[in-house]
């Protein structure tokens, strides 16, 4: 046991002082938070700037259907939502023109964002020609004044023909008030946008960081073993310890480094976020299960990476080989949107029951809500089976592949080593 402890201690200390580890520990969360913040600011500012640059919309009404006095009444009613998505709403002012040429000249000068032309036969055809200036990509995405004009058209066409309340409902059919019903039957308002975004983003960030922890820790194991094989230390190590002792020590040391990373994220990022911003809506049970899948996922990939680290001649070669494991396990990540929308679909359940995709899928499903107990049991069982096979296989490869240098082994050779050792 003292040998396993010595290996574990060394692996832990060497790993936590690596530049890559420290960057992942401190740099990655900062980059993620900073990136999200910057992206949100940037998109808000870009849209705001884009709209500000558009200016009012000119209208040439040859059909004589518009009543501009109703323009104030057609401003959108503020939502009950205290935090509307600012910058997205179209608040453009409509300016009446008699002459299309004059309006187009103002558009060219930049005084107008767009010009609408309602021909004399508008009531029969419904056609409206929209003129806009060439102003980069956002000028094509935003439709300045279109909503305002539509509202003014509805108001003008119905004014005096229908009751005031009916006109109001045509202009604003409803004010939506979102309520949420829990499984226990508790009904409560859905909350503001920050909460709604946080409900998705908090667990997703946690899922992302936990997934990163699994692959970083097992990646270090792969790198460490491949380096020890490359610099021939492994031969000396195996003259002192058994392959199982070496593997156990390494897995424990690097697992501890991974757990330290998780603990850091939870204590310094997730907990304050959930307390201060109510970002975290996961139950303690979900968090505990998530941590269990992190440990199981780490053990599975540690076994696979240890074996793969022994097959290459250099750490780069081993890393290339390991792509097969990381790519397979990342498939649920690519389908995250679909899996989060339907966390209990047959696809989500299938991924949960396949050892390579189970950790990421279960972390993803747990971040969206409760997962049926049977799914947890089956996925845990297949993961444990996968871990046993991966660790046993890696220990067998230590005896043979660790001393082989030169040509990269073929699959048939690897199979023979696994059988012979």
């Amino acid at each position: 046991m003292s040998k396993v402890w010595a290996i574990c201690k060394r692996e832990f200390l060497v790993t936590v002082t690596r530049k890559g580890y420290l960057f992942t520990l401190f740099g990655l969360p900062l980059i993620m938070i900073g990136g999200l913040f910057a992206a949100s600011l940037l998109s808000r500012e870009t849209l705001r700037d884009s709209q500000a640059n558009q200016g009012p919309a000119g209208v040439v009404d040859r059909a004589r259907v518009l009543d501009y006095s109703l323009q104030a009444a057609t401003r959108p009613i503020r939502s009950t939502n205290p935090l509307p998505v600012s910058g997205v709403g179209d608040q453009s002012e409509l300016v009446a023109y008699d002459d299309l040429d004059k309006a187009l000249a103002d558009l060219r000068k930049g005084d107008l964002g767009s010009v609408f032309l309602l021909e004399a036969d508008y009531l029969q055809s419904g056609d409206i020609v929209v003129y806009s200036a060439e102003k980069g990509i956002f000028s094509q995405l935003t439709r300045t004044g279109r909503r305002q004009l539509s509202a003014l058209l509805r108001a003008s066409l119905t004014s005096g023909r229908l009751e005031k309340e009916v006109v109001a409902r045509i202009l604003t059919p409803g004010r939506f008030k979102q309520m949420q019903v829990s499984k226990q039957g508790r009904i409560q308002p859905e909350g503001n946008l920050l909460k709604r975004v946080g409900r998705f983003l908090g667990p997703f960030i946690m899922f992302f960081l936990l997934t990163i922890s699994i692959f970083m820790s097992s990646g270090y194991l792969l790198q460490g073993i491949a380096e020890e094989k490359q610099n021939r230390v492994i031969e000396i190590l195996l003259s002192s310890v058994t392959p199982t002792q070496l593997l156990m020590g390494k897995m424990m040391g690097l697992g501890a480094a991974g757990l330290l990373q998780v603990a850091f994220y939870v204590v310094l990022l997730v907990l304050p976020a959930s307390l201060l911003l109510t970002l975290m809506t996961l139950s303690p049970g979900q968090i505990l299960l998530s941590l269990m899948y992190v440990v199981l996922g780490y053990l599975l990939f540690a076994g696979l990476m240890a074996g793969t680290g022994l097959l290459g001649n250099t750490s780069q070669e081993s890393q290339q080989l390991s792509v097969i494991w990381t790519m397979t396990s990342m498939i649920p990540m690519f389908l995250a949107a679909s899996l989060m929308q339907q966390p209990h679909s047959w696809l989500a359940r299938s991924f949960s029951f396949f050892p390579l995709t189970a950790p990421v899928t279960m972390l993803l499903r747990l971040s969206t809500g409760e997962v049926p107990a049977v799914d947890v049991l089956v996925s845990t069982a297949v993961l444990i089976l996968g871990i046993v096979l991966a660790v046993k296989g890696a220990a067998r490869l230590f005896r043979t592949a660790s001393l082989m240098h030169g040509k990269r082994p073929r699959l048939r050779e690897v199979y023979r080593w696994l059988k012979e050792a």
Partner: protein
Amino acid sequence: MVAPNAIISVQEVSKNFSSVVAVDRASFEIGSGEIFGLLGPNGAGKTTLIRLILDLIRPDAGSIRIQGQPISETHKNRIGYLPEERGLYFRQKVMAVLEYLGMLKGVSIERVRSNARDWLKRLEIDDLRNRPVQELSKGNQQKVQFIATVVSDPDILILDEPFTGLDPINVHLLVRSIQELAAKGKTVVLSVHQMSLVESLCRRVFMINRGRQVLYGDLEDIQNRYSEPSFLVRSGADFQGCELIDRFTSHNAAATVYLKQGVEPARFLRWLVESGAEVESFQRARTPLDEIFIRVVRDSS
């Protein structure tokens, strides 16, 4: 051939890698406290034999015993191994590497530190203990590798090409260290290509070629076996007219003299004295080991 107090016993051991026979029914014994030479050309199977003794790989047939028992973790703790290719953590400091590798032999950190300091001083690299291994010269890295092998004070040392990268002064330093260790009762298995070092260090040798045993036994016996009845004579005598000798070759102030069949060396010595020439030295000439090595490898290939 049984070694007195055999500590390592290899009996009829074979190992194949796919269709390649790496070791074919090798048998030898190594006595406690001896320096045993493991010889053979490149690719002969020496490293495979060493790995089999260390239980890094398992034999297909035969048995290997350490102190009469199959190798166990206790035995592993008592064996120090220096592999042919340097195996060190190059980015770590010398002392940290020695501490780690010493502790993996089940020795306390305090004892490892104390041993490491002693050996660093003895091999004259004490000032390098806090330097990363990669900053050291090849020769000094090799010294660190040697210290990593002895830092746990093992009873058996398996040294595969320990003199690689060392200059003559450091070779001498290491030879002296190996002799001191053997004098303290440590068993040393030495695999080297410098036959002069084998001659000066080893009493018994095992030679392998293409996986098969080609020589095994007492080095003096082997050299005698491969030597003709000849003598190295340093004197002013003229051998031209001597009826006792078959032929002779002169080199510098000495001559190698080959006696005729059935002539006793004492009779020749008497002739030498009676010839009136001044005799500085008279000794039996043995075929150098490197000559035997080449002859055996050529014949067995």
